[in-house]
């Protein structure tokens, strides 16, 4: 079966985020960018499905500026077979991203679409669910285990208080949580090979999707900072402070 994986180019996980002085957003100039960590888990899961003989082809799609092709190449180096780049320099919000992915799904007709549960920039946690709703597919969100059996997939989900397992008809959407797998690193030979793998480019216009944002960002501010308190000498003093000063125990 064909698996479609969506990946997003975001600020690198380890970069310290700085708000622009004019409060218009976060400063991304000359900042290291990378594949969203949850998307890495999505790519890894697709590659494992292929290694098990469940997936036959992995198509990776990314929406964003020209530079997002770097993240597609990374996915190709990790084991995806070909890439689709939906190129735009405009801001793409979740609903519009879901509509673009729906257009790609209609062309590619994958049996499964795997996405990260959220991106670490906008922290929305929406696109996979929106894509599932727009295409009428079932969804296994926050997945910690994915088992394909014939025309169905069992997805174990991380929910408040524990785990829940669902059975979904294929095609289905899966969004990844942290414990689903541990992504591998791309080897140098595979990085070289990835450069020769096919990568098609398209645009929101080609796909017939209006990507005008519905949400307007009024301002972006740095969070109120918390001040460091005091250091205590020992455990007895800690307990005394918590009981008699902070009065929280």
């Amino acid at each position: 079966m064909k698996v479609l994986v969506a990946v997003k180019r975001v600020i690198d996980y380890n970069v310290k985020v700085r708000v622009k002085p004019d409060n218009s957003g976060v400063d991304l100039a000359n900042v290291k960018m990378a594949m969203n960590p949850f998307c890495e888990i999505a790519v890894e899961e697709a590659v494992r499905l292929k290694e098990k003989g469940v997936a036959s082809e992995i198509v990776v799609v990314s929406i964003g500026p020209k530079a997002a092709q770097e993240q597609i190449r990374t996915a190709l180096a990790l084991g995806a077979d070909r890439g689709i780049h939906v190129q735009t320099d405009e801001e793409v919000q979740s609903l519009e991203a879901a509509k673009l992915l729906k257009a790609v799904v209609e062309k590619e007709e994958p049996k499964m679409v795997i996405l990260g549960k959220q991106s670490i920039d906008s922290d929305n946690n929406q696109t996979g669910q929106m894509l599932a709703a727009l295409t009428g597919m079932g969804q296994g969100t926050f997945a910690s285990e994915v088992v394909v059996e014939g025309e169905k997939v069992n997805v174990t989900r991380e929910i408040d208080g524990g785990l829940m397992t669902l059975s979904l008809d294929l095609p289905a959407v899966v969004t990844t949580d942290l414990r689903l797998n541990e992504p591998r690193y791309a080897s140098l030979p595979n990085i070289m090979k990835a450069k020769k793998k096919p990568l098609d480019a398209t645009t929101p216009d080609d796909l017939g999707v209006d990507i005008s944002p519905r949400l307007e960002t009024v301002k972006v501010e740095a969070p109120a900072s918390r001040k460091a308190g005091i250091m205590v000498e020992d455990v007895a003093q800690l307990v005394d402070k918590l009981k008699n000063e902070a009065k929280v125990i």
Partner: protein
Amino acid sequence: MSILVFAEHDNSSLKQATLSVLAAAKEIGGDIDVLVAGDNCSAVAEEAAKAEGVNKVLLAENAVYGHNLGENLGQLVAEVGNGYSHIMAAAGTTGKDFMPRVAALLDVAQVSDIMGVVDADTFVRPIYAGNAIATVKSKDSTKVITVRPTAFDPVSGEGGSASVENIDVVKDAGVSSFVSEELAKSDRPDLASAGIVISGGRGMQNGENFKMLEQIADLLGAAVGASRAAVDAGFVPNDMQVGQTGKIVAPQLYLAVGISGAIQHLAGMGDSKVIAAINKDEEAPIFQVADYGLVADLFEAVPELEEELKKVL
């Protein structure tokens, strides 16, 4: 303005988070209706009817809503919610699962995880793991919103006397079914709503050592949490994770043990009233946000803490 609040529950009782969503709805203003969807959950509807500020409770009882399947809830809430100015749910794993489906079906954007209400169209929400705070304005006629429960003081669960109206809307998307559930059984309070949380990090070294924290949690009536590092290392399950990618908590007291304080962790507990930290590394970033810091080997300090607490509690 008319607001539909989705009630979170386990078919027998209303989750506290719903009262916080009601508080956020109250800040927006207007008539507030509550939707209770589930299987044999009329007790929840009665409980919701008593909550402060509720105009009317809509009760959709059917087996298809028994397990919070996102496909079915998405269709139900999109239909019932159509015509309301705002549709709101708690940003827990249920709301996060089905609410984007509601938004997509209504062709509107969703505003996720709000921590403040500016006006009926404008909301405050964290981005970049809480390292930046965005104020966003929705241009849609219906606002689909998930609410960070810890950011709003819950309304009272008593005193209201709303009517309960049964609604006969059965939506079965037919593409998903419930297989099984494995909920952690614990007598301790729920992590997201506990008054005291004690969390362990990579410094705990293994899962077995979390028992030390559990003993202290039982003394204090606290919930036990963990950093992502402890989850990644396999010490404890993911549902204990506090941080950007786990649970957001804001207890009266957050006690961090062997947690260095990565920004992703601070994003999940930075709003706690009092933070205390025990770490052997005096340079650990957690001390920059802690009200009380103790530089010590946790394997000595935690047993000592247990003894000291026994003396004073």
